[in-house]
């Protein structure tokens, strides 16, 4: 009997009804609900903004736009800013999740708003209505910009595509790179004309946000048009299926396009500056007071009331958080990981306040190079940094500096031999980077004078010093067998929560991320100004181009506590490099440098002399397509009771990066190319 019931029940489910359900489902929110009032629009905006391709704490260059805060770290994609032990630390040659599918989802949202909102115009005052449309254009511009700098020419989907539909309607081929940048320009201009001058809600865009991002985007476009020409093969080609110039610019139009975009970048940046709405953050700044200047630059990254902030992505505990402090804090604050962002010595060498050898590298011995003479000795590691630029101290934690109320002890090892001490290695070149401190005879042989630690805790070697036990490595490492300690002798300070009472953990951080700040606008104006002068163009608004560039650089340098320019920025490669170097310094560890290196086309071997924004001999840190970075390793000498420093290629978890010319344009995802009759792969792949 029971069995019959069961069979009957199964039978019942098999014969289902066929009545038409034509009642609109009440749990689906429709246009009438969203487009008729401001709170409905807020929902629509929230959806769009949550999908924006912003690069903040939830972006990892190696992975792409995944909105994922796991392993949060900055500047580790082969830009020389910082290093990380893991595979995520590799050159920016592609993204695990290509920014393709997600882009079209967001484009559809923006296009839908542009097409549908006019039907509901009567519900809003004109200013508000225009602002919403402006938001949609801003979103579209941001998406096309994010795609263009990855792929070059992309399918310009500027209307809602209805499905099902004709194949010609559904399939949109890639446009040329020039058309793509023109679309970015047109969408930004449209947004600028529609948006209100101040954001009606926190997190919404406004006219000046759009102008600031426009200047950044146009600088990218202009640089690509100009510097593609410096690359072997000119980095251009026609798509196989469509014959459209999907990559690069035609030889005859490149120069004109570059000038046009530089002018746009300049004018947009100038308009933000001239508005007087923003200024550099100087709340704690005081002339000549290095400590105040340092503290000022630490505070500016967490102060939501900063006049420098143009566009900020805010977080809030416990609902919307990230985990930067859980992955990138010094080892003693491990929670559950640490040391994700270890700045390099090469990066440090961009900054003022260090004695140098004649080749520009930081001086660690009293000789003429780091293999010559004997080590300079310091009573405490911080003495080495006594004159360091305050901005560098705000970005980087030095060995022995204080963070969250604790001294950050970083020590590579202890040296017990006699002083004065000769350099530990006879050769510090790129090729010998794989010979490490633990391979030195002073460490491996019987009469040992060098003590190092493989790991923390019981892995520490102990040296007796003045009757007390001293660990060979500092509390934060470096440990030669544990990449979770410090890798380079330095730690990133920027973006870390400096509050001693804050307990880090995964998903516990809520610092805001500044996506656009006034300093960048100044640098955009400066770079475009120099480039325009180099191209022999007149100033678009009659201002003195070189004067604008000079004062922008000096304003930033003054706030940073750096040495001001002696004269004016000049209209040559030298002047351009002053601006580039300032940009590399000021905007370091903000997800910006990797794009700058990419648009300057200085990452492949032939042009790598320009990698640092200033001229540096490429063979010092690279070998053909590959390159590496250095750390600054502090050692303690028991004979003298003092510290000395050794400048050596990354000792722990050595990373070798590789960058080739094809990497300036990411490959179009293979599946998209093979399933479509019109989507072209990059012609040089």
């Amino acid at each position, binding site marked *: 009997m*029971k*069995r019959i019931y*069961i069979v009957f029940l*199964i039978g019942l489910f098999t014969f289902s009804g066929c009545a038409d359900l034509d009642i609109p489902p009440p749990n689906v929110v429709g246009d009438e609900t969203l487009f008729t009032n401001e709170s409905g629009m807020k929902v629509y905006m929230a959806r769009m903004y949550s999908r924006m391709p912003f690069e903040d704490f939830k972006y990892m260059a190696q992975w792409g736009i995944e909105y994922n805060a796991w392993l949060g770290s900055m500047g580790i994609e082969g830009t020389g800013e910082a290093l990380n032990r893991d595979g995520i630390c590799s050159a920016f040659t592609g993204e695990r999740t290509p920014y393709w599918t997600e882009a079209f989802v967001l484009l559809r949202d923006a296009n839908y708003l542009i097409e549908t909102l006019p039907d509901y115009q009567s519900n809003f005052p004109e200013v508000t209505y225009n602002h919403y449309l402006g938001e949609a254009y801003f979103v579209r511009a941001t998406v096309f910009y994010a795609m263009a700098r990855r792929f070059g020419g992309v399918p310009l989907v500027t209307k809602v595509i209805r499905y099902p539909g004709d194949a010609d309607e559904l399939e949109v081929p890639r446009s040329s790179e020039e058309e793509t940048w023109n679309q970015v320009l047109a969408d930004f201009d449209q947004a600028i004309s529609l948006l209100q001058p101040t954001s009606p809600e926190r997190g919404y865009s406004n006219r000046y946000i759009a102008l600031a991002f426009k200047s950044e985007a146009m600088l990218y476009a202009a640089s690509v048009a100009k510097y593609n020409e410096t*690359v*072997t*093969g*000119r*980095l*251009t*080609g*026609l798509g196989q*299926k469509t*014959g459209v110039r999907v*990559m*690069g610019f*035609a*030889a005859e139009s490149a120069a004109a396009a570059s000038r046009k975009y530089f002018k746009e970048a300049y004018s947009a940046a100038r308009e933000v500056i001239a508005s007087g709405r923003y200024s550099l953050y100087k709340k704690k700044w005081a002339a000549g007071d290095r400590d105040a200047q340092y503290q000022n630059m630490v505070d500016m990254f967490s102060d939501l009331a900063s006049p420098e902030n143009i566009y900020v992505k805010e977080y809030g505990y416990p609902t919307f958080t990230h985990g930067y402090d859980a992955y990138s804090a010094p080892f003693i604050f491990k929670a559950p990981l640490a040391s994700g962002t270890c700045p390099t010595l090469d990066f440090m060498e961009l900054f003022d306040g260090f004695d140098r050898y004649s080749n520009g590298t930081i001086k660690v011995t009293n000789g003429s190079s780091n293999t010559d003479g004997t080590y300079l000795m310091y009573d405490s590691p911080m003495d080495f940094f006594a004159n360091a630029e305050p901005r560098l101290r705000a970005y980087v934690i030095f060995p022995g500096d204080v963070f969250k109320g604790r001294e950050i002890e970083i020590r590579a090892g202890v040296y017990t031999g006699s002083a004065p001490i000769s350099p530990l290695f006879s*050769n510090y070149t*790129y*090729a*010998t980077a*794989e010979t490490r401190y633990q391979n030195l005879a002073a460490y491996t042989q019987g009469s040992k004078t060098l003590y190092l630690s493989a790991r923390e805790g019981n892995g520490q070697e102990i040296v007796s010093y003045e009757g007390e036990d001293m660990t060979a490595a500092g509390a934060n490492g470096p440990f030669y067998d544990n990449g979770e300690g410090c890798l380079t002798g330095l730690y990133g300070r920027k973006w870390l929560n400096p509050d001693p009472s804050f307990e880090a953990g995964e998903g516990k951080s809520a610092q805001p991320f500044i996506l656009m700040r006034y300093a960048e606008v100044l640098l955009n104006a400066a770079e475009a100004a120099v480039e325009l002068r180099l191209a022999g163009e007149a100033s678009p608004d009659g201002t003195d181009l070189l004067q604008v560039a000079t004062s922008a650089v000096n304003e930033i340098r003054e706030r940073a506590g750096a040495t001001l320019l002696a004269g004016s920025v000049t209209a040559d490669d030298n002047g351009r490099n002053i601006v580039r170097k300032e940009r590399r310094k000021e905007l370091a560890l903000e997800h910006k440098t990797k794009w700058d290196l990419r648009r300057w086309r200085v990452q*492949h071997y032939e042009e790598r002399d320009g990698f640092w924004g200033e001229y540096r001999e490429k063979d010092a840190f690279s*070998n*053909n397509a*590959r390159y590496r970075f250095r750390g600054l390793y502090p050692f303690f000498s028991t004979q003298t009771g003092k510290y000395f420093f050794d400048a050596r290629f990354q000792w722990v978890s050595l990373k070798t990066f590789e960058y*080739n*010319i*094809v990497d*300036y344009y990411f490959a179009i995802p*293979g599946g998209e*190319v*093979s399933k*479509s*009759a019109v989507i072209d792969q990059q*012609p*040089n*792949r």
Partner: protein
Amino acid sequence: MKKISYILSIALFSFTSCSLFEIDNKEVPAETIQGEVVDVETGEPVLTDQGSEGIRVRLTEDSWGENVTPNPDFFCMPDGTFQNTKLFKGTYHIRIDGPFIPLMREDERGVPLADESQIVNISGVTKVKFEVQPFLKIEWVDEPEVINGKVRAKVRVTRAVSEEEFRNKIEPMGGYSSSFQNITDIQLFVSYSSSVGYRARDERWSNKIEYTGSAFNSLLGQTITIESTGTIPSGRVVFIRAAARINYDTPKGSGTRRWNYNEPLQLLIP
């Protein structure tokens, strides 16, 4: 218990499809292509390096119609031959790109100028031969010497395709510059591996000489001495190779300037 298995078996049958009863009997890809790349003038193989800077082989099985994706690229072996033993039967379009005059040439608007690629029906063991015009020829001069753990080698670089011929074939492709023919660098690759080349080089010892502009032109056909860097440990056997390239990328727009190589030599470091 019985009831459960009864229900389960009903449930199981609800989730079946007819393909469940078919045997997946697709044959494994087992056809072989063997190819060689030789200099059309001398018939000598075009030596290369196995890796993405070497001679790239791209197979496209185009009988499926428009919009076919090429097979995954593979690369020639250092001796200028290639082989793939895991191919499906079919008609393949084979193009190779390397340090020689491109086989498929088109002008700036995409109009084909010449196509020396091959369309081959691959079944069983199929052999193909590409006769190309390599850019350069690199030869050893005398035996390399080893002094204090450093290799000193003498090489001679000559053009394997004349300047006029190069210009005749490349200029119609558009964007021509006389700088294309400049020799930009000579490399001496040293490695413990017998497959020494750019990819398998040892960065501690490999060295290069770079030339700017047309500086090298006067050295064409001359003996050039190049020495390794660092110190190679004594008692070890190393392999060395020299390579040179011109300022022209293949395929066009890739920015990859591929080297022409000479044959590897084995050396004992005393």
